[in-house]
């Protein structure tokens, strides 16, 4: 079987600090593999059997290759970096379109297309489902666990009010909804083996997409304006000896916001 895992490089939001204006400080923050994607890859590696192949791919700037390196160290077999200056500024649709074009051109026969639920740097987690629609395959959102069942798979999905168990046919899109903070680290063996694995680069022309199909020009939404919101966290600290006082205060706050 072949598994294709889509990943993203993100700034480590855990390392981000807040400046005096309440804005996130992004400079100097290390870039990491999106934890949801790392979990998705770990799930795939867990169900992989000998003879299976795990391919990872990402769309991003050249330095996103670091995130792919990490995937190779964890045990992925090969990696693709979809990169082109023309991809900059892509919205969900333009992103999904490029990813779908990549999949159709390079790994059309994968048993599963696996995603993390969302990127931690503030994206909304729509990409997997747009890709599923463009590939015209079934989608399995909020997946908690995935097991092999003959030629297909069984997924357990967390829909909040219901937990769904469903059969996942070959070629579906699966997005994993959780992160395991205690996930394993690469082994030294994994690291050494990854050194020999190349990262193939794919650009816009190789995807066969025109300049108006990708990036900002290929986007179907447009940011009209942005407004920075000053930190709404007022950060008032009160040391209180009588719990009833705190209780009163909280109750009043609740009333006030009704």
């Amino acid at each position, binding site marked *: 079987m072949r598994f294709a895992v889509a990943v993203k490089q993100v700034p480590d939001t855990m390392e981000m600090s807040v400046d005096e204006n309440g804005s996130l400080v992004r400079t100097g923050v290390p870039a*990491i593999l999106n934890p949801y994607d790392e979990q998705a890859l770990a799930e795939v590696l867990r169900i992989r059997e000998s003879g299976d192949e795990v391919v990872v791919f990402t769309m991003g700037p050249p330095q996103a290759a670091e995130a792919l390196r990490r995937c190779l160290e964890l045990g992925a077999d090969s990696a693709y970096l979809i990169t082109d200056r023309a991809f900059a500024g892509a919205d969900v649709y333009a992103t999904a379109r490029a990813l779908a074009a990549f999949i159709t051109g390079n790994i059309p026969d994968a048993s599963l297309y696996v995603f993390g639920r969302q990127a931690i740097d503030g994206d909304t987690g729509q990409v997997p489902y747009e890709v599923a629609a463009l590939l015209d395959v079934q989608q399995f959102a909020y997946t908690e666990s995935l097991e092999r069942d003959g030629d297909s798979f069984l997924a357990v999905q967390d829909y909040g009010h219901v937990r769904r168990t469903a059969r996942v046919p070959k070629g579906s899109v699966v997005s994993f909804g959780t992160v395991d*903070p*205690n*996930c394993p*680290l690469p082994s*030294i*063996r994994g690291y050494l083996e990854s*050194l020999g694995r190349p990262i193939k680069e794919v650009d816009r022309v190789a995807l066969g997409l025109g300049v108006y199909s990708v990036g900002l020009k290929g986007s179907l939404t447009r940011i009209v304006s942005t407004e920075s919101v000053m930190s709404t966290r007022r950060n008032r600290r009160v040391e209180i000896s009588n719990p009833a006082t705190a209780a009163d205060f909280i109750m009043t706050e609740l009333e006030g916001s009704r």
Partner: protein
Amino acid sequence: MFYRQRIRSDSKYLTDESKMTGKGEHVIIPLNEGELREAVRINNSKGNPITVSAMRTGVCGGCVPLEGDVISLERMSGVLGIGRDERGYFARVLPCTTIEEINTVLRGRDFSKLADVTEGARESLAGEPVPYFYPVDPTEMGGSIGGNIACNASGPRTYRYGPTRDWIRRLMVVLPEGQYVDFKRGDFKAEGRRMSFPAGRSYYSFDIPTYDFNTSVKNAAGPMFHEDMDLIDMFVGSEGIFGIIAEADVYLAPWHPLMSNILFFPSDSDALAAVKEIRSDEAIDPEFLEYMDGRSLELLRGVMGSDPAMVRVPRIPDRAGAALFFDMMMTDDMVDRYSHVAAIAERHGSSLEDSWCGHTEGDRARMRDMRHSIPRSIFEYVASLKQGMPGIHKMGTDMSVPDSAADEMMAYYSEQLDAAGLEYVVFGHIGNNHPHVEIILKSMDDFEKAKEVYGRFARKAVELGGSPSAEHGIGKIKIDYMELLYGREGVEQIRKVKDILDPKGILCRGNILGAVQ
């Protein structure tokens, strides 16, 4: 004028990480060296004892006052400047700057707000191809540099970089009578065993003790003395009994990308056997070598789910029966160097599959978190016992021995503890033959037994040519070791030096020399 406030009985100034609690009247918080000297002078004229305190991260009660006032240096913090001499770059720092703060400033590589101690040093350091850092890693990165110097702190990286002492270029020390001495290494040296130096309008000259401080092992037991010694070395590791560090120059080392590794072994003996081979293999060349025995791993597995501090520690493989943790500098020949690791691992029941590695800061931090969780978990466990058994405290060894005696000491630990029927974990700086043995106390009875066994460990370590306090220092908790090491005479000789520098005996009473009778 300086800030002086009465201490409440539950004040943070009365305790440190040893959880020992003391007594004190006032806390004085000087803003600068001038205020510090004024405070010392006034207290000295009244004969009022003062105990120096900064981040209170010590584990031997060094900053816990027994009487009198506390001088907290908390406001004297920050990196002042950058300089360069024939040995290399150094940073000029105030005493309460934490190791973390020093490294953050250096990592930021923006020195525009700092002073040039030597001309052009800032610009030249900023232009270096790699960032620099202060390499002594005392594990507790939130401790102050002054505290680190006062107890000659060391840690895992002592394996490569040596203890704090080796990184001190210059000190400004405020003496108990209110004068100060500002000097570099090499400015004042003893002639034989006669030490002389001027300070303000005074001139001190005295005989130093006749013992030779053991530098062949990692050692933090008492102040250093030896023939023709440098005055710097007398203050480094003296735990504040001779003077207060008001400013220091610390040398910096170039930072290199590092690969952290944890190698799992089936059993304790396999891991310990591998230690020796890794240490003697020049190709591997680890930055440090840390050991976690099977019981430590079991302890971590147990607290994994409930301890929020373990939140990102990777799950420990079920098969792992012991582990070695070591960093390697990232070089072009990693494949070759790892083949040496592989050969050693395979000889001792492990392999490169049974391992973790990581070169990103996040991954490396996850491995460090795991190692640091062991002492913290024990600390919290003991704290939970305190309710039922108020007298109890953590029982951990801090003893180092020479390479040749490492096996004997390890065997002695388990033999004695097993015979006493105590539960324990072993982990720590195995590269320097300095593992920590922590007893998991269950009852006051255990506590009594443990104290007794500890005495024997200390005697054994000294007998084998080691140190009973390799990195934690003496403070107020381990003063018994002083006589064990230096005899009654040695301690008396130290006291004589103290009497000359601090005739009224006001400074840091109780540290090293014990309470004055």
